[in-house]
């Protein structure tokens, strides 16, 4: 994927602002005797419009639960979650979701995967097709538009998943450890890819990770969570210059911030 490729006019709508107020979410215990587990209790969080927010925490701290509620896959037991003042009631195309694995539809070609959203919304066919092809070019998959997902490499599948979400022009991008299952080399390439994409579109991003370096490299702000029930342990502003390149990870400022975040995270166990 060439770096020059990502210089097209932004396709995103105005970025969305997220407000999370006093959210509680519990899961039932396995038997009647064992008590249910509270994943989140009285959780508050604001994400500014156009902000790249990283949710960092150990597994079981409720960060994925929170993301699922933001996506509208599950409802909070109490409290409120809203995007641009509108309460989240279910999944919707204005909130794009990227899962840990790309979750492409294996029976559709790359292009038809990207076209799933426009077709579901009843978008005009020709325009949607042109836009999908343009996005595939942006993510460097123009020559693979007729390939099926199993014919693509791991990184290509992730990029196809990005194109499939971006074609909906989401105001909010929700990512649940999207690069967690990738090998180290592809992972770095995907982080660079995401940074370029975000420089282009500047939509609001909520990015769940358990990798400190990834959080510092990508985020404007890092919310360190501790469980159970999940609470905000600390919030860090990442005042590193943008656009960010991978070379940033070698600087003293980066190392310093990384240590602070790691200490906050370790204190949370």
């Amino acid at each position, binding site marked *: 994927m060439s770096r020059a490729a990502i210089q097209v006019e932004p396709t995103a709508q105005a970025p969305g602002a997220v407000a999370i107020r006093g959210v509680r979410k519990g899961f039932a215990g396995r038997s009647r005797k064992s008590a249910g587990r509270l994943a989140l209790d009285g959780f508050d969080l604001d994400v500014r419009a156009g902000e790249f927010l990283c949710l960092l925490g150990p597994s079981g701290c409720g960060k994925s639960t929170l993301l699922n509620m933001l*996506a*509208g*896959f599950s409802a909070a037991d109490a409290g409120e979650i809203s995007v641009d003042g509108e309460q989240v009631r*279910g*999944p*919707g*195309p204005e*909130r*794009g*979701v990227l*899962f840990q*694995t790309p*979750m492409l*539809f*294996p*029976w559709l070609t790359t292009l038809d995967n990207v076209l*799933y*959203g426009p077709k*579901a*919304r009843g978008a005009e066919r020709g325009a949607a097709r042109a836009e999908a092809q343009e996005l595939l070019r942006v993510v460097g998959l123009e020559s693979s538009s007729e390939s*099926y997902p*199993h014919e693509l490499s791991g990184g290509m599948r992730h990029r196809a998943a990005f194109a*499939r*979400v971006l074609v*909906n022009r989401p105001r909010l991008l929700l990512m649940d450890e999207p690069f967690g299952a990738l090998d180290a080399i592809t992972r770095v390439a995907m982080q660079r890819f995401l940074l370029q994409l975000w420089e282009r579109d500047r939509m609001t991003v909520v990015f769940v990770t358990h990798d400190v370096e990834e959080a510092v490299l990508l985020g404007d702000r890092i919310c360190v969570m501790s469980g159970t029930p999940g609470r905000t342990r600390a919030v860090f502003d990442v005042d590193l210059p943008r656009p960010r390149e991978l070379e940033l990870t070698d600087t003293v400022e980066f190392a310093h911030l990384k240590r602070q975040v790691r200490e906050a995270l370790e204190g949370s166990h």
Partner: protein
Amino acid sequence: MASTTDTQVGAAPLQAAEEQLTLAGGRRGASYSRLLWGAAGIVLFLLGWEALAYLRDDPVILPTVQETARTYVDYLARRYPAAVGDTLWQHALVSVARIAAGWGVGVLLGIAVGGLMSSVPLLRHLIDPLIEITRPLPPLAFIPLFIVWFGIGETSKFLLILVGVVPIMIIATVAALDAVPRELEQAGRSLGGSPLRVLLTVRLRSALPSIITGMRLAMGGAWTSIVAVELIAATSGLGYLINNAGVNLQTPLVLSGIVTISILGIVFDTLLRLLQRAVDPTHR
């Protein structure tokens, strides 16, 4: 201990690479040689049959291959029973029609019930034990019951095929739908698909290849039970032909009927396999 783990870890990618090589370079060659060996197996079987037939020298117990083939070709145009009956092909068509009706309805019924069971837990708890109870029962066991309830017409034959098809289809459908990852449906919903659209274009679509596997198994089951089905006061059909020719000690004709069932079974399974290939790009 540490060293063994190392070799194991190192061996896995190597094995994968090797597999890829054979797939890329030797796939066509391997499938040709497999075909050749398969043909050799059939020829050996026919030779063995021929040798036994000559040793035994009794066409009622075991006719020769040529005699069976002659009978087969002969009855393609000749009626059985003589004058009032049908030719071999007409018998075959009758059986195909019975199977098409029973299998077709059974498949639709099985998918509908399986789909409901997969989405409504209460229904699943309700129906699951019933399937487990009826599944091991041979269709033959229902013949007297169905005759008492529905007489000796086509209804009993139709229901008997259903008994063989529906449980297989229900089990296959439930398993296929259960195997669809939740996140795949969530992806469809968050891309803007309505619940109904995602149900049809993601959940069912994703399960389709496995459901077709169930359809193939059910088709096999339907053909296996055709002889039993046509024991019920039939005057036509391959099962009837086999039963009746057997009673009259026309062994070559019995064998001709068996060969016809086997050919039809292969043809229908091949069609379903082609369908499966068409809907599942990962199996091409």
